[in-house]
């Protein structure tokens, strides 16, 4: 396996090889467990939902996976490469090219003082794009894909609604053509109708670009519509995982049964 790849080269995708392989991932905060002994495989084009209530360790797990926090134990292999053994430079580079991270609060993922076009273009420049016209065209194209009108390209995100900011964050993240996207409650702070539009957009992007996604949420309705597979966490441990509709319709673990039966019917 070669370790060299240029950012924009089309990488060969073998759908039968996991894109991400996680084994025994553990993170402790002193005596407290962040996440414990988490293992799973993620295949190209798959959306994995991680659910659990606040404090279940789902966000800790996500930030360890994305390299925002360092895991204490375990292994993460991305496309055959050992992520935890990488140098910080290598990992950051991966974070700018092959990976993307969509934060719950768009303010954490956007530069609020820079125009919408600049937010998208900046990511391209970070991976070496230099031609202004190309960068602007590509930014324009991505704003269109996330349904932001072209006449808003020079506006700052602070002038956008919450839903628009979230779509801009997605455009900024996807413009470099990542293969793996981490999402932390991406529909969290949005109105229900804005959520629906974002879900539709995400589903289309996953399907058309063949993205692999790990999405953390407490919203079971969101994962039912978006995730192929589901992992249920409690107290830092994965208590159940499987096909999304199987876990929701025929939960096996006591905690999942409680979680599913606690959802209000609309």
């Amino acid at each position, binding site marked *: 396996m070669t370790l060299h790849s240029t950012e924009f080269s089309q990488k060969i995708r073998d759908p039968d090889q996991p894109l991400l392989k996680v084994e025994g991932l553990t993170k402790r905060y002193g005596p407290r467990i962040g996440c414990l002994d988490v293992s799973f495989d993620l*295949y190209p084009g*798959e959306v994995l939902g991680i659910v659990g209530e606040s404090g279940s360790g789902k966000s800790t797990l996500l930030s360890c996976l994305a390299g925002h926090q360092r895991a204490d134990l375990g292994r993460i292999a991305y496309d055959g490469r050992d992520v935890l053994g990488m140098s910080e430079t290598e990992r950051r580079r991966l974070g700018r090219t092959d990976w993307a991270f969509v934060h719950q609060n768009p303010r954490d993922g956007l530069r609020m003082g820079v125009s919408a076009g600049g937010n998208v273009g900046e990511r391209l420049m970070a991976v070496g794009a230099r031609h202004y016209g190309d960068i602007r065209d590509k930014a324009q194209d991505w704003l269109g894909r996330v349904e932001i009108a072209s006449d808003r390209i020079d506006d700052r995100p602070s002038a956008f609604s919450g839903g628009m900011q979230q779509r801009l964050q997605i455009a900024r993240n996807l413009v470099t053509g990542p293969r793996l996207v981490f999402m932390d409650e991406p529909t969290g702070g949005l109105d*229900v*109708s804005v959520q*629906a*539009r974002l*879900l*539709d957009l995400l*589903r289309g992007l996953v*399907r058309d670009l063949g993205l692999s996604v790990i999405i953390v949420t407490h919203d079971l309705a969101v994962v*039912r*519509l978006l995730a*192929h*597979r589901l992992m249920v966490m409690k107290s830092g441990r994965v208590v159940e995982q*499987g*096909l999304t*509709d*199987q876990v*929701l*319709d*025929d939960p*096996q*673990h*006591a905690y999942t*049964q*409680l979680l599913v*039966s606690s959802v209000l019917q609309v």
Partner: protein
Amino acid sequence: MIRVENLSKSFTLHNQGSAVIPVMAGAHLSIQPGECVGLTGQSGSGKSTLMRMVWGNYLAAGGSIMVGQTDVATAEPRQIIALRRHTLGYVSQFLRVVPRVPTLDVVAEPLLALGSPLADARAKAADLLQRLNIPERLWPLSPTTFSGGEQQRVNIARGFAHAYPALLLDEPTASLDAANREVVLTLIEEAKARGAAILGIFHDEGARARVCDRLVDVTGFTPKVAA
């Protein structure tokens, strides 16, 4: 195409004193390509449970469920995902969709997931919606606001968009008027003619008599030992 052998199922209710409720034992059936088998039995006898196990959203406790080359009872999630994409279709009684997505795209989606070009997928979707008498002015709207019968027909159109080799139909003619019922029965007959293996639940006896080649009474699969 579909072969169920020695299938069993029980539910464990952890939050109700960990009661274990056996609901099925020794279930078996087989469906050849081009054949439609109807499940019968009283309400609560396990027709839907059996169908959900074949779909894979209910876990089997034991036995096997072969759909093509995949054993749904033991398959990995991603094998079931692939099976549902290519081989196994399901018309449930409920339409579950992302709100605000136009009806035309809801119906076209299974084809898009298989990589069909957008125009082809939409053309096929339009054809089915037309046949099922969903007025064209409704196609750009989300089906979440439609009447029960309209939603049922959108669900059917979606289920028949791709020519699945195996199909599960849960009350496909419920809440339909005579003309639309006729359309659905014709769709089922066409699917059989192209070689689809179909497992159905039909409370509508006339529909059952017309499209089913055989009936399987699930009462025979009720566990002998009372819970």
